[in-house]
């Protein structure tokens, strides 16, 4: 008897947890299919179903919502941030992990300390620096902001490089390979999980961040906004009554590129987070 009950209880418990975790997601989904535009406070499921919110999102951009443009902007920012961040992190990690030069440790500690300053604090100053360079109100400026400081996040990747056997690099050196060759032909091919980890993090940043974007992009025309900025704007007090279900539809659509990225890289992601830590 006990043998039957315990597995059932175990799976019932998991099912209950999964249920709790999925409630908001399900609500997001069903609300996005509601024909009522505001927040439904009385019933969990909508009274009338329709796909009008999605249609509105893609075909009827108005003065506060222009989803296709937001999506395009965020996508461009995501792709470029991703590429620059990956290159920067790999470069800094290789220099710190595999090369020995004067004041290496000094620079490493300096970078770690720099990384500890609260980002929210320097935001205002970054705005003034960008204004000085004439890069506010532009997608290019946001790419610079998201990717330029990425070299500071070298710690995990360096830990990973530290675990690559020294003999591998030394034998390459004996064969006459330069550091550049070792970096591009040996170390980079070995660090796939690290690259995946950095790609995911860097690609997600512009989809999640609305504070920095709102500060940098002062344009009142929604064509210039990013997805995060635009969706955040839709649930502000004055708009939420007319746009809440549109916001939900937007949330569902945004999940698509992120899920696709996850599905492709899920296997690497788990390896990537822990790969460096497990070995060292």
């Amino acid at each position: 008897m006990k043998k039957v009950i315990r597995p059932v209880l175990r799976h019932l418990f998991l099912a209950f947890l999964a249920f709790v975790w999925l409630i908001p997601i399900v609500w997001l989904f069903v609300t996005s299919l509601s024909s009522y535009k505001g927040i439904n406070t009385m019933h969990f499921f909508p009274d009338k179903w329709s796909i009008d919110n999605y249609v509105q999102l893609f075909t009827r951009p108005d003065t506060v919502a222009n989803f296709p443009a937001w999506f395009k902007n965020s996508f461009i920012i995501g792709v470029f941030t991703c590429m620059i961040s990956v290159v920067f992190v790999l470069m800094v990690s290789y220099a710190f992990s595999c090369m020995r030069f004067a004041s290496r440790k000094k620079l490493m500690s300096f970078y770690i300390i720099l990384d500890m300053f609260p980002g929210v604090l320097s935001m205002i100053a970054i705005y003034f620096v960008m204004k000085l360079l004439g890069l506010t109100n532009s997608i290019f400026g946001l790419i610079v902001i998201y990717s330029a400081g990425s070299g500071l996040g070298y710690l995990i990747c360096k830990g990973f490089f530290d675990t690559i056997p020294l003999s591998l690099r030394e034998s390459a050196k004996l064969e006459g390979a330069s550091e550049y060759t070792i970096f591009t032909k040996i170390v980079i091919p070995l660090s796939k999980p690290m690259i995946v980890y950095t790609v995911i993090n860097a690609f997600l940043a512009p989809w999640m961040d609305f504070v920095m974007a709102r500060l940098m992009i002062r344009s009142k025309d929604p064509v210039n906004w990013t997805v995060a900025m635009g969706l955040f704007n839709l649930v502000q007090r004055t708009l939420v009554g007319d746009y809440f279900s549109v916001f939900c539809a937007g949330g569902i659509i945004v999940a698509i590129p992120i899920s696709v990225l996850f599905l492709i890289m899920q296997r690497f992601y788990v390896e990537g987070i822990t790969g460096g830590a497990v070995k060292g």
Partner: protein
Amino acid sequence: MKKERESFLRNFIEAFTKGDIFTKLSILIFGTGYVARGQYVKAVILQIVQVLFFVFTFGFSLNYMSKLGTLGTIQREEIFDPKTLSKVVNDYDNSLMILLCGVIGIIFIFLYILLSLSNVKACYELQCLKKDGKHINTFSEDLKDLFNHKFHITLLTLPSIGILLIKVIPILFMICIAFTNYDGDHQPPTYLFTWVGLENFKTLFTSTSTVTFGYAFVRILLWTLIWAFFATFSTFYGGVLLAKFINDKKTKFKKLWRSLFVITIAIPQFVTLLLVGKMFSDYGIINSICNKIGLVGFLQDIGLVSKGLSFIPFLSKPGWANVMVLLINLWVGIPFQMLSATGILMNIPEDQLESAKIDGATERQIFRKITMPYVLFITGPSLVTAFIANINNFNVIYLLTNDYVTTNMSYANSNAKEVDLLITWLFTLTNDYSNYKMACVIGICVFVISASLTLLTFTRMIAGNREEEFQ
């Protein structure tokens, strides 16, 4: 570290005293040392750098640096000119630009001095090579070296320029602001601001009936630490337990369960958090359900909800809101922890588990004595990082308590709320009240807390020679 700096200076002095006339001259005119040894291209490049620096300093930043002492004296005035019938603005000082460009100018001077010192050293090395009759690199050989022995220079240059632009300059600038009176009443370009010394730090620790920063600061600091502690450990243990539960041999459909939890990660945090915030709002869906099943009445009877309210103040009353953000954070954080813990659990050496089983250990013993220590050993450093990340966890608090209004005047006077972390308080101060000076003081405090925590745990990792242990 000190030794390194000393030897850098000593090397320079040695190079400078023993160098010949060309080496000595190279401190004033960068190219001379290279011209004398036949490295013409390098000489031209360095000369151009030097000229550019002088053009920048004398043409641009010196103008601002000279006013750094006062941060400007001439206030902006508009005078109506009756002749042209238009407003004329005087040649005013902009304190903000003076501070920003002054900081940039000083950084450039600092870099210039470093460059000129190491330049003399490089010229001296060339001089020695020539004297000994050894081979002096041609320009193309120097370029090749940049991809071999000096590859780190090539690697670090671009990232470092980015860090200088996005991190170093803003941080120095904001530290300076903490010592000025830059707030809503002193906003450039219309008004000037100036240095006030340690005045703002004093304000942070005073509590009177009108200035309540001291009152709010102590309480918010305490709540920040409590929040960081509980948020870090609750999600950590929750994540490990869940991963353990799912990975157990007796659990069927492992992949299905895992993906059900991972789905919540796929939707951006700001969407789910705003949504959950709306669900738990005073007249939101959770409250109408609680009303229907009579939970509100029950809570009123046992005194957890005051009689005057017809809803449960999940996110709108102190106490309630503090607990709710911690609970909602579980919802956000556990799937992430579950994912990374899954990877770690899979790597636990099988033989240890097997031998423990043979020795007759129960499952709970195995979990407590083998699994947990192993997981802690691996994730220990990342727990510190997570703790600091939680001190700076802006999104969860800001998005959930966006509509929270405090009724405590002592908090309200300093623009704070009971559920604020230092970081969200700082953001409200700058974004809604333009109180930059106090925000910067708070920012410095946050930095000191995070930095001392990190230094306590990480110094061993950086200072020791552990990094080569596994190669």
